[in-house]
């Protein structure tokens, strides 16, 4: 199966290892992975801040970049959800809207793709340790991906999962929210970090780099030694 990787700008710039693990994981699951070089950022920072006109430039760039792809898979629930918004964003431009619908229909979040499209719920990985999982908001509530990550994680050899109290609460990232409403965001991430440390888990696992950078940044500020991992890193561990 041919899969185009949608890396997301955060993984591309800050955590290329997550990208590498995503590629290898997909290859291990039998996919042929390509990387359309025309891709940039999904446009969410502008769109969610009300700059719809500006976001459209990014959106069109992304649609063009992935035009030839059979499947598009990204290691982020939030960025994939943004792609799902493209037809709505371009609702007044019929030609573009059609192209947006085409892309949105073929785009999947990584764990969603592995479970729902490839039909795999055990990727035969091994990872020793205790971990808690943060189900990020856009992935669960908007994209509706709730079970796939858990199912894959439950099948990882050696991994003990500990329930995260009030896991469904937002970590306070919210893109530009973290900067525009920094004071509130700080309270939210502090609360989330406390819930993480309460579990006494060695690792925090998540499916969205934005949330992980936020919670991880707070944990490290608080000098907590919880290590933060993207789910692709755990699933590709052997």
């Amino acid at each position, binding site marked *: 199966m041919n899969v185009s990787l949608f890396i997301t700008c955060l993984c591309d710039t800050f955590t*290329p290892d997550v990208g590498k693990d995503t*590629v290898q994981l997909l290859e291990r699951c039998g996919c042929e992975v390509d990387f359309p070089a025309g891709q*940039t950022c999904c446009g969410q920072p502008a769109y969610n801040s*009300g700059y719809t006109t500006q976001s459209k430039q*990014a959106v069109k760039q992304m649609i063009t970049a992935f035009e030839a792809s059979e499947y598009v898979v990204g290691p982020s629930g939030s960025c994939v959800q943004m792609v799902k918004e493209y037809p709505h964003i371009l609702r007044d431009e019929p030609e573009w809207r059609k192209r947006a619908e085409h892309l949105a229909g073929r785009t999947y979040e990584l764990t969603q793709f592995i479970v729902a499209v490839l039909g795999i719920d055990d990727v035969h990985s091994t990872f020793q340790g205790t971990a808690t999982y943060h189900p990020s908001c856009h992935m669960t509530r908007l994209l509706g991906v709730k079970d796939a990550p858990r199912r894959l994680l439950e099948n990882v050899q050696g991994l003990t999962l500990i329930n995260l109290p009030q896991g469904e609460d937002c970590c306070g990232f919210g*893109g530009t929210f973290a900067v525009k409403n*920094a004071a509130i*965001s*700080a309270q939210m991430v502090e609360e989330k970090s406390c819930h993480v440390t309460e579990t006494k888990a060695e690792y925090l696992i998540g499916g969205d780099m934005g949330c992980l950078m936020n919670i991880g*940044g707070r944990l490290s500020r608080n000098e907590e030694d919880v290590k933060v991992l993207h789910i692709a890193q755990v699933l590709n561990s052997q």
Partner: protein
Amino acid sequence: MSIKIGTKTYADRIQEGIDNTFMRHAVSSAQGRFRTGRLKAAEELGDWEDWRTLGEEIRTHTMENLDYYLYQLSEQVEKRGGTVFFAETAEEANTYVQKVAEEKQARKVVKSKSMVTEEIGLNEALEKSGCEVVESDLGEWILQLDEDPPSHIVTPALHKNKSQIRETFVKKKGYTKTDDPEELAAFAREQLRQDFLEADIGVTGCNFAVAESGTVTLVTNEGNARMVSTLPDTQIAVMGMERIVPTWEELEVLVSLLTRAAVGQKLTSYITSLTGTRLENEVDGPEDFHLVIVDNGRSKILGTEFQSALHCIRCAACINVCPVYRHVGGHSYNSIYPGPIGAVLTPLLDGYEDHKELPYASSLCAACTEACPVKIPLHEHLIRHREIIVEKEQKTTKAERLAMTGFAQWASTPAAYKLSTKMAGTVLKPWTKDGSIKNGPGPMKAWTAARDFPAPAKKSFRTWFDEREKRREKDDRL
């Protein structure tokens, strides 16, 4: 009161909220209780999602035929001896009620809980025309004594604890007992009893007006609305023009959703239905019944992309799950409608000028949208508001606009984007120590005030992928 409750700046309000440890503790534990209750009640009902869909359908249908149902409602109320007044503005509504009070030579008015009367500032208007107004909902009564605005639409005094309440009672009413909630409530009941007996007019809100029978329905837990609506001879019910259901059948669905979503109850203690005046062959009911239907900006919302905001049944489920509300409390919104629905509704009813920050007071986590029993896409409405604030109202800063224009260029030019992934590490190097940034420049400052920022990777993913592809091609050639 009116929609807006004060004059402090947004930043000050937020900081005050954050610094109010007691309030945050109270809000957080109440949210926990409400959340568990709602989830349990939804589970017990079964098919919660189907119920929500039904609720959404009922509200959509009603709003799309609002003129028809309002007409039917007013016909029915008048048929049952009531008088209906359509108020386009808050002022018109208040003037009408003042006029009724004057005609009745009323000195005392008792009220049951009603958000719309807060919205239009009815108490102040009545006081101006010489009436004493007494709130009879316990929470509202406490706030009235304390001259404090509500911080929640269902439990208005959520931000107060029992010792604060006791203090208020001592100061304002000469209370002498302890802060035991039972004793406090008993005292309030005793005090209010006299007011009920003396009142000339009873003012109620309206949870749902049933169009087919001209019935005003109130959903309460304290039973005070029954006193308000039975003792005084003159009754005035004030409702927002959207608070209507076609028939009793829809009422049942919406009440089922409301009580479960609000407090996790299958049913509240009291559901009171008021239909017109006492007719000749009847033994109870008021002599005079007035229904004041308030527009106050609502009809402007009809037919716009925000129409579904009018579907709200004021259950506060969105407020009870909101993490922003949890940390800043209701007063920070500077509106009698706080939380996610407040952030959506307030700018619609009261304009952007004073409330332009509200739509941004959300991380767009969509917990509100998920909790809403009538499926209002609250977080999407917040994005629409932001769009208007940016594009129509042009209320964002120049720096932000420039940044967003820069973003658009960057994200639509792969070469520029690629260069930035390469350069990011170098640019941020002066601030980077041990792989992270603890005190970043520019907009990063706000981020690094509370958390570390990771240093960009030495080699971006795309560079790695390029190199891998080249290596592979070379291997293939060999």
